[in-house]
């Protein structure tokens, strides 16, 4: 297999694609949103449980998608849990820049999280796949804002 394909499908992505973390429903979620990419038929729901201090206590997703979108959703749940809403939004902005080839600016306190998300940077060379990687994140932001539905096209 060629190296550029390996850049896109890194081991971590393949692992999270096969064995997604936190793919489940949160019964007492207080925020959720549906995300849809009509182009490829991917659909997912992001569930959030945010406490009174604005900290994300639990986060999960449900749905089926390609390896990139599933791995991205899985990794997202792992880096988002325990963060404040503000930090989650900052991570979204940084991740979006990472995936689209923009300038990634993130604060020092979120450096470790951004390092973990870096495995998805390969999508920037595949414009069609950027939407796969960002679907879960757009849905997360929609859930934070209590928008019921978001689509990436």
């Amino acid at each position, binding site marked *: *297999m*060629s190296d*550029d*394909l390996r850049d*896109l*499908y890194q081991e971590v992505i*393949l692992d999270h*694609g*096969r064995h997604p973390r936190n793919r489940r429903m949160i019964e007492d979620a207080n925020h959720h949103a549906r995300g849809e990419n009509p*182009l*490829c*038929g*991917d*659909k997912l729901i992001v569930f959030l449980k945010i406490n009174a201090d604005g900290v994300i206590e639990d986060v999960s997703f449900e749905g*089926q*998608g*390609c*390896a*990139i979108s599933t791995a991205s959703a899985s990794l997202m749940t792992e880096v988002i849990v325990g963060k404040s809403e503000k930090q989650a939004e900052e991570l979204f902005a940084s991740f979006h820049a990472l995936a689209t080839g923009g300038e990634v600016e993130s604060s020092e306190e979120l450096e470790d999280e951004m390092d973990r998300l870096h495995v998805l940077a390969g999508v920037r060379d*595949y414009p069609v*796949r950027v939407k*796969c990687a960002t679907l879960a994140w757009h849905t997360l932001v929609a859930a934070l804002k209590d928008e019921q539905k978001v689509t990436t096209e």
Partner: protein
Amino acid sequence: MIIAKAEARGAYDVERIRADFPILGRPVRGRPLIYLDSTASAQKPQSVIDAESEIYATEYANIHRGLYYLSERATERYEASRRTVQRFLNARHAHEVIFTRNTTESINLVAATYGRRFLQPGDEIVITGLEHHSNIVPWQLLREERGIVIKVAPVADDGDVPLEAITGLLTPRTKLVSVAHISNVLGTILPVAEIIRAAHAAGAKVLIDGAQAVMHLPVDVQALDADFYAFSAHKLYGPTGVGVLYGKEDLLNAMPPYQGGGDMIRTVTFEKSTWAPLPQKFEAGTPAIAQVPALAAAIDYVTALGLDRIASHENNLLAYASERLAAVPGLRIIGTTPHKAAVISFALDCAHPHDIAQVLDNAGVAVRAGHHCAQPLMERFGVPATARASFGLYNNRADVDALVAAVTKVQELFGQ
């Protein structure tokens, strides 16, 4: 004509034929191109490319109005192309051939003119569960405006739409049956001759969406007794930007114009305008002057090769590809009816269609992944999307081997 007739009637030499298609000689991502997406759009032989550029280089002017040499020549080329399409479909009259932008516009034309003029609230249109969005949405738009009823004939597990599925929906209120000749997703060939006979017996008109059919099998609109037949040039190895709507003369005459503008009028005053006769009535504005002759060149190309021989070549490839793909563990072919053209939709247990297409692309293999503009059909088979390999007159067994090898790579990468 690149292929001499005598030679064309000899053995089907796919390697010679491939040499007619310059794009097949270019590498993609450092590998030879394996083009398996002709169902979305077919590649063009040099004769088609030359026909279009020749018009611009030697005979280009606007048509139907210039009183000078170039305009007369361009008009003659354009109208001669209409006669080529007439012969290709075996239409009774050349003026029953209307040039549009594509199949989508051809269907929309019928919905907007025949549909608006002749369909009343409660009238029924029958389509099938395997239609492309372009044979669903125009009728939904008409439903919003006219209150018509759309009935959908179900698709069987093997991808077939049996005749009874359609005849069972016919009622005295059925005004139109609008069905694909061949499914763009499953390759299913519908029994259109029988459908047309049954629909006519019930008093309904029939539109056949031939976008996926004209390159795979000979079509005779008179023998079929089709009321309308639509197709696109670009899937027939011809140029983009040109489609065809065949319609029976009496129907086209009874229908109001589609768009208003130049070329489609006889007289215009601010009080009232009168329409030009067929076919100009439906061809408002400057058409695809350079592309229409290129469509004629594409028709000449496939006709010289022989649609029967093309079909036989493609059917051999379909059998070979189906057998090799079916042997891949965890691979499911969607659409297994024996009545099918060279289109294979498939899903893999271990990988999403987009991941399949990505890995295939890396190996130089171009397939389509997605819902193929047929979301209801995806739902019918319980998949969000499929990967689709489709074969044209220039594909060979090496293309199939490359496809299977690349699918094996997908499994290596994504298998547990």
